[in-house]
């Protein structure tokens, strides 16, 4: 029986009251103090538990209300109103929406999957990841066993280069050199943040979280401090060139290094491999229209892992930019066509905001993903980007306890892991490795629109 990967979650309370969508119950003048709203109508006992958060002057009526409108509808003088919380509406931006941010908060607090009643209430489709759906399978497959079977679904992925065949000498001895391979128990690694408050404690929270989850954190060499060295086996160190101030023994403790795609890439990779042949070297390549050719070139040159990065909205660089999922499809299919897809590991990052994005990018051809902003959001970040301007963080991220942060991150990833299992269970797959590039088990907005809607209105 294979070992089961289980993420232990527990409720980790917020430091600040969460910002909720609804709220703002306004009383107009003229209340008769009949207490109908308090005593009779609130089934959630919101009024009885009412309190004030003095730090932010937030009334708990706003955060605990569940929008049933009973008090609004039963007030004898029609004095109670509800509205959408303007602070909620102002969260994030059009990509990092208030819905995404609050869903990430919920997961980081509870470790649970967001569940709701009443069916789907969102838009039909959207840009980027919202322009695709994943498949499900109506009839049972022998690899499935209902809700208990999901515990055996593997989310493990291999990071490194793979041989397509083994070569043997006439005497039966193995000639091929087996390249190093790292298994991570889930297809998520943590990346450098596009912005963040002063981040010593934040990085430590990432490191504690990554270690307990069995995955990695990308860290720039200049950020690495002495007291982080106990985490070296969970760090992907990003170096721009040969760091002459580090001794060779240091590189023997590392398992992964990331280097930029440049003219020096090959030389740097060889230098690293010379010191530690078990070290896995990942090449960071910003996505652009040239990426497919470049990835092919790198893969042919023997690169093991390529980290394909988009910006924080999932967009690539250059004119007429593609969304990360679309470019990933291109790259994956190009390598498949060239017959070398399985030799190299592709990791995608940038704009991964929800668990579904991870699954969808894997369907589009990535082996694994890197995430960044969601980790900050797990620690109550509001994606206000004030830190970028040097304005103090409204949730004091720079002062967090790293262990608290790590537990929040673990909860979030626990939620994502569970949601990945939901997706895999529905498609009837037992391994996330099989999901990679399975575009036939997904449905794309543009294709379906063309097939069914674009021809409407034509006479028979």
């Amino acid at each position, binding site marked *: 029986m294979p070992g089961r990967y289980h993420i232990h979650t527990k409720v980790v309370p917020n430091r600040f009251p969460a910002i909720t969508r609804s709220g703002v119950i306004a009383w107009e003048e003229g209340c008769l103090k009949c207490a109908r709203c308090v005593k009779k109508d609130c089934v959630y006992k919101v009024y009885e538990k009412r309190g004030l958060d003095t730090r932010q002057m937030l009334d708990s009526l706003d955060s605990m209300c569940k929008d049933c409108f009973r008090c609004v509808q039963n007030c*004898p003088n029609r004095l109670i109103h509800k509205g959408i919380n303007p602070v909620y509406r102002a969260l994030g931006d059009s990509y990092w929406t208030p819905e995404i941010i609050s869903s990430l908060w919920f997961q980081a607090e509870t470790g649970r*999957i967001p569940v709701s009643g009443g069916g789907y209430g969102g838009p039909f489709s959207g840009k980027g990841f919202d322009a695709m759906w*994943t498949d499900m399978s109506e009839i049972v497959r022998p690899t499935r*066993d209902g809700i208990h079977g999901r515990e055996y679904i593997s989310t493990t992925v291999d990071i490194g280069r793979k041989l397509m065949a083994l070569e043997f000498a006439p005497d039966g001895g193995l000639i091929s050199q087996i390249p190093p391979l790292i298994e991570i128990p889930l297809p998520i690694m943590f990346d450098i943040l596009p912005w963040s408050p002063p981040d010593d404690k934040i990085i430590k929270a990432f490191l504690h979280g990554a270690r307990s989850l069995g995955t990695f954190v990308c860290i720039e060499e200049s950020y690495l401090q002495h007291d982080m060295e106990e985490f070296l086996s969970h760090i992907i160190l990003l170096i721009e060139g040969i760091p002459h101030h580090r001794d060779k023994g240091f590189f023997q403790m590392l398992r992964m290094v990331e280097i930029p795609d440049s003219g020096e890439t090959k030389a740097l990779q060889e230098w690293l491999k010379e010191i530690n042949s078990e070290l896995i070297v990942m090449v960071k390549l910003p996505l652009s229209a040239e990426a497919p050719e470049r990835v092919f070139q790198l893969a042919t040159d023997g690169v093991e892992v390529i980290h394909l990065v988009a910006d924080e909205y999932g967009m690539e660089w250059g004119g007429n930019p593609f969304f990360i999922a679309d470019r990933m499809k291109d790259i994956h299919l190009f390598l498949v066509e060239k017959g070398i897809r399985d030799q190299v590991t592709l990791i995608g990052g940038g704009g991964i905001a929800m668990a579904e994005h991870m699954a969808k990018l894997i369907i589009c051809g990535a082996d694994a993903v890197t995430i960044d902003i969601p980790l900050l959001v797990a620690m109550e970040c509001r994606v206000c980007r004030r830190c970028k301007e040097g304005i103090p963080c409204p949730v004091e991220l720079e002062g967090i306890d790293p262990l608290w942060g790590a537990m929040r991150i673990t909860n979030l990833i626990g939620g994502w892991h569970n949601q990945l299992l939901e*997706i895999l269970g529905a498609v009837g797959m037992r391994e996330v490795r099989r999901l990679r590039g399975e575009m036939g088990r997904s449905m794309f907005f543009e294709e379906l629109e063309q097939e069914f809607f674009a021809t409407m209105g034509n006479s028979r």
Partner: protein
Amino acid sequence: MEQGIDPFQFPPVQEMPGRFRNAISKYRITIHKTCTNCGLCISLCPYNVFTNGLKQPRVSREHFCPGSSCSENDFYCVNRCPEKAIFIRRNPSFEALGDRRWPAELLASTWYMAETGCIPHQDLNYKTGDSNGGFDKIRFIFPREERTEIADEGVSTALALNRSGDNRPQVSIPVPFYLAGMSFGSVSIQTMLSRVKAAVALGTFCSTGEGGYPEELTPYDDHIITQVATGLFGVREDTIKRVRIVEFKYAQGAKPGLGGHLLGDKVTPQVAQMREAVAGSALFSPFPFHSVYSVEDHKKHVDWIKEVNPRALISVKVSTPTDVDMVAVGSYYAGAHIIQLDGSYGGTGAAPDIAKKNIAMPVEYAIPKVHKFLLAEGIRDKITIIASGGIRSAYDMAKAIAMGADGISVGTADLVALECIRCHHCESGRGCARGIATTDEELAKAIDIEWGTQRIINMYMAWRSQLIKILKRLGMRSVTELVGRFDVLAHLDYIKEKEIKGYLD
């Protein structure tokens, strides 16, 4: 009474106001202290918004006020009030209501239909939601000239459910819809009985969902569809023998590929007894049927039910995977009479958000996919296609039929008729705060069965009259003529009004 070509006596519409003191309205009317209580507004307003009050008129039917669009009328109270004491503005609570699929206006118009049985006279969009795709971007192409040659009574909305030509009974319903499965446990017995009794009055069916067959439903056996789902909760030979239609639930659109999950809180002693389970512990209905690995296995299931109940029609409810067309063909060859395509917008007590949003295709694609495939296979006229999981209005119903369904099945709209506000908190605490989707005895008392029945009847009667209007405008005498008529539909992203002869609505 002459009822036209459908020899069915439809139930009367009766006004049935909401249960709450204040209806939620689009506009908010306030009367200033300067009011002299002259009563002019009371006598002017044809919508009876005002009633007599002690010091000033009472605003008792605010939700009937057409708002500023009334300003052109000479009875517009704001202009006519001698003291200029009446103020009409947007209700601030209105925007906090609903979601993209069920925006506040669609909710309010459904409440209006449930209260009055009529199409809203206010400026409420009762035709589409705000999802920006699918049904909400599809319009009918109506001929510009008004058609008058067909009378309302000359239009049939009836649907025959057994098209297979086997020796089983023909079951016809006078309306092209039946009420979708919502289990006892996910909704209260009051809600369930309201739906069932409305189905009886409308001559159609109501599915039990997967929660067993409460004894209270026995008088209505002829209008019940009993569900056989993977958990087999409460399924007994006896319950299968009682009914005219048995429904296999392979998957549910709201949680495709995931099976059902009734949280422990909702498993009260009554629910537990019905489902033959233990009170207080969560119940899983696994996904999928573990006895079905192939279409052949599926046929074995269908044969089993047919053997137990020789007069039953078999319906197969499936979700919408990429190969939903193959699933439909498989169901036909297994001997099913009805294939129900369940989209992911449908309501359910609790489902992971990731599944509702991402897994399986929107039902708007699945309907034409299956219709066209069965047509090409030459078996389209042998099986009935029912679309569900996202039908919110008469317009959605008509569009689904024009896209290839024979009829539809509805659940959420029924709950909205019972004053569901789509807060999405069916699962929390004691369950639905509005007493609809709950098993909490005290909360469930909020629904009176007679009230609920009439509200649902009213809504569907309004839907039926809209369907008849749509058919008449298209020059059709039967809803069966509308099936698969892509030529009368247009998608706003691909067709502009000026490119076509008719007009879009």
